[in-house]
């Protein structure tokens, strides 16, 4: 009887440590957006490249949210889906925004803390595929976060890449690479 409590506390302690170790690694579900926007249709069916909307991914830290102008670019012509009224309805929703010249207030899906200086440019240019972090977006109806985006997760990849060429890639695990 006298020793049971100590074992229990040991177990809880262990569980606690593990919990801490694993915390925040499960990505959140897809948020509800003001209008339905299907990456599956745009990136999947119509095979529109990522950078044709997220234009600055290759030459700027942020990939960029497409401007309303960019939506208009295509939807000037694409106003309905002949064989799917549901999709037509979705397009209508967009067109209303365009008519009123109002921007769509998208709910942010991917968010890194401000203490992280992440740059798309650097990653895209060094050959990282968008899908490696954003998942198979072209299969998603609504965009959602698939990677945990935790420091451990970033490091896992950085370490792998560094192991390939340890000397000239020393900076890959340097704190100052992401924190300034």
């Amino acid at each position, binding site marked *: 009887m*006298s020793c049971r409590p100590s074992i229990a506390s040991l177990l809880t302690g262990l569980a606690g*440590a*593990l919990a*801490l*170790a694993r*915390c925040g690694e499960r990505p959140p579900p897809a948020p509800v957006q003001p209008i339905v926007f299907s990456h599956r249709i745009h990136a999947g069916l119509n095979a529109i490249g990522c950078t044709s909307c997220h234009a600055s991914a290759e030459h700027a830290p942020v990939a960029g949210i497409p401007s309303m102008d960019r939506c208009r670019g295509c939807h000037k012509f694409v106003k309905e889906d002949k064989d799917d009224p549901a999709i037509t309805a979705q397009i209508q929703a967009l067109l209303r925004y365009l008519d009123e010249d109002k921007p769509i207030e998208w709910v942010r899906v991917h968010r890194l803390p401000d203490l992280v200086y992440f740059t798309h440019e650097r990653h895209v240019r060094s050959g990282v595929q968008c899908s490696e972090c954003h998942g198979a977006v072209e299969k998603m109806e609504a965009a959602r976060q698939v990677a945990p985006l935790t*420091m*451990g997760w970033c490091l896992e990849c950085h370490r792998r890449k560094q192991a390939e060429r340890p000397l000239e890639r020393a900076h890959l695990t340097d704190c100052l690479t992401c924190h300034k």
Partner: protein
Amino acid sequence: MSTASRFRSIEDTVRATHGKPGAGYWVALAVSASVFAFGAWAYSLIVRSGLHWTGLRRPGMWGNLITDFVFWVGIAHSGTLISAILFLFRARFRTAVYRVSEMMTVFAVLTAGLYPVLHLGRPWFAYWLFPYPNERALWVNFRSPLIWDVFAVTTYLTVSSIFLVVGMAPDFAALRDRAEGWRRRLYALLSFGWRGTDEQWRHYTRAYLFFAAFATPLVVSVHSVVSWDFAASVLPGWHSTLFPPYFVAGAILSGVAMVITILVPLRKAFHLEELITQRHVDMLCRLVILTSTIITYSYATEILLTLPQPATDPERSTFVYRMTGDYAPLFWLMVACNCIGPLLLYWRKVRETAAALLAVCIAVNVGMWLERFNIIVTSLAHDRLPFDWRTYVPRWVEWAITFGAFGWFFMLFLVGLKIFPSVSISEMKEEIAHEGALEAGHAH
């Protein structure tokens, strides 16, 4: 008087300490609790809006709080010294006093342990100082003395608490047998089902000896590690190989002084005179005198080693500043308290008059606090680039936290007194049995 009845009288005296507390006790408890509460509130200010509440500023980034930390770790020392080392040396006089000093140790470590967290700029991240698997895949810096502190203090806390609890098992059993209500249930739990069988006694004595041996190196290690916080730096006045022994001696000095400071009133309040006799006190006083002389020697060494340096030497400059600069009064007060004061204990008269004895011991504790303050603050205030020299003066918030810690310590102690047997029943019985055996021997 038969051995059995004397056994009983011991139990009675000890149980008496658990009796219904008088007004005095409640007042003491209320005072210490409210002092603690005020300190806690003062600290909440820092948590809410930052360390600008303190008097800290460049170059002095450490002040009262670190001083308190070192001070309390010091206090924590004598407990293990008395109970473990003296046990190994078979120093009989420890029997009556070691329980109190062990309690003091545990509570002092609990107090000291607060400070490394309290003084942080972002205390809510204090857990980052522990090496644990985390999603940031980050590790702690084992080169940092602060990490050594973490291990030293936590280890010390673990060992000293186990030592205390194990040592009390037979006593708890003895109390259990004569207690009822919640006390009975509590003691039943704490006595780990002790029945006093020969089997248990054999295991118990082995275990106790083992723990004593295990705890002994800690007495030396813990404060050595704490001293490395300073010795491992490059700051003139901190960077000194003398620190570990010097800090350990100082720790024991302050610790023993604190034991006496507590014992003297305790023995009066709970009428333990026949258990804790003048002889015990004298023995502790010897310890004080011994360690005080070691301290005096250390001070002298430090100063005499640096004074011959050229006047432009920063090391020398720092010590000259310590003795003649802005903080000189504190330095000389420290010397008076730690080097001169204890010498009074050579006189039996001083040892026997409670007031005088208390005065000396409290002075030693003040002195030892000042010692740490001097080491930390004067060295920082007067480092290598004169353009940056600035003094540090603690603000009320820091004083509130400092005294709050005393409130916290005495609060715990007062509660502890009502639950733990403040004198080791079983070992006192042993003593008597021992004497009994001797008498028997003479009889024949």
